[in-house]
């Protein structure tokens, strides 16, 4: 990649993540619909599968989920400088807004319109994440093995309150076992038949 196009990429990463940062309301997962739209669909920086891997890693590592995913996507798209650009972009809105509020308003206190806007945005985020889950599900849940894991993870995390990292680790172990004990054996049997 030439130096110039690298710079253009970084500017674009910063700006897209700046916009994503403004609308990260109601937790890090609120980014998912926007990442899917911008990073996967509009810009084509990641495939849908890579995006799912990014979410899995961001959720299971310590640290701030929004920063984890910005660093991951920036690094994948444009190396170290891309990671720096996306991370700065996702942090900048919070940073600027907090300083502006504290400097000029002292404290926001109870602004009903802002609180109402946040209620509306969280309601939208709720529906948008559901749609993301359905879209990704169509792509990833191709058979009974995948369906069972997804439903088990949903119940473990959503209903029984298990921390996401344990579900991801359990998924990794089950995946490794499934791969070695089932898929590879099936492949070997096929080859023997030949």
């Amino acid at each position, binding site marked *: 990649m030439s130096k110039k196009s690298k710079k253009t990429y970084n500017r674009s990463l910063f700006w897209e993540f700046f916009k994503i940062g403004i609308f990260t309301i109601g937790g890090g*997962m609120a980014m998912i619909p926007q990442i899917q739209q911008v990073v996967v669909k509009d810009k084509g920086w990641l495939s849908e599968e890579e995006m799912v*891997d990014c979410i899995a890693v961001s*959720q299971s590592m310590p640290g701030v989920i929004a920063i984890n995913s910005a660093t991951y996507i920036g690094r994948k798209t444009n190396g170290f400088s891309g990671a720096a650009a996306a991370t700065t972009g996702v942090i900048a809105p919070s940073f600027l807004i907090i300083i502006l509020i504290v400097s000029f308003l002292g404290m926001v206190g109870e602004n009903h319109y802002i609180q*109402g*806007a946040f209620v509306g945005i969280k309601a*939208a985020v*709720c529906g948008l994440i559901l749609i993301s889950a359905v879209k990704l599900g169509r792509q990833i849940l191709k058979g009974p093995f995948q369906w069972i894991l997804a439903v088990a993870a949903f119940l473990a*995390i959503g209903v029984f309150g298990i921390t996401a990292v344990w579900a991801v680790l359990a998924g990794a172990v089950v995946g490794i076992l499934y791969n070695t004990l089932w898929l590879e054996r099936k492949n070997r049997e096929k080859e023997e038949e030949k």
Partner: protein
Amino acid sequence: MIYVTLFVMFFRIGLFSFGGGLAMLPLIFQSVKDFGMMTASEFSDLVALSQVTPGPIAVNAATYVGFNGAGIPGALAATLGVALPSFILILIVVQFLERFQESRGIQGAFLGIRPVTVGLIAAAVLFVGETVLVNGPIISAKLFTEGVSYFNVIPVMLCAATLLLSGVFKVKPITLMIVMGAAGALLCG
């Protein structure tokens, strides 16, 4: 020096936070108290501020505590501190995954991790929904026994409108968030 204290304090918060969001508040409170950076009432201001400020709560907290303690350089030191652990750890993980992406172990692991992540995203609907759609826990018999009064009617309608506009008419997420934010300000404000 106060900048170093701020940096170290928030580096620690960034490093030991799991799960994100409101789950981080107790950890943040413990740390700022240990370092004597904040009183309980200032902390409650911070919580209130985070409720009406976009972005990750940890970053909001770092900027707020840093700025109050030592102006803009303080805000920079604290924010850099909270972001660096994520940044460094993720760079290491991506490097590791790229090197071993062809290995049987990693490929097998992701065969299991991907479907789990779909379930995880679906579960996030419950977590966000609980904060805005219902008056109480979202997994509860009250959903059926208490009738309409258990639901916040306007947010439920905004959520339904979002589902329709995004699912059927393919309206972009950012547009929908702006529209529903404006609707929320008018109807719930």
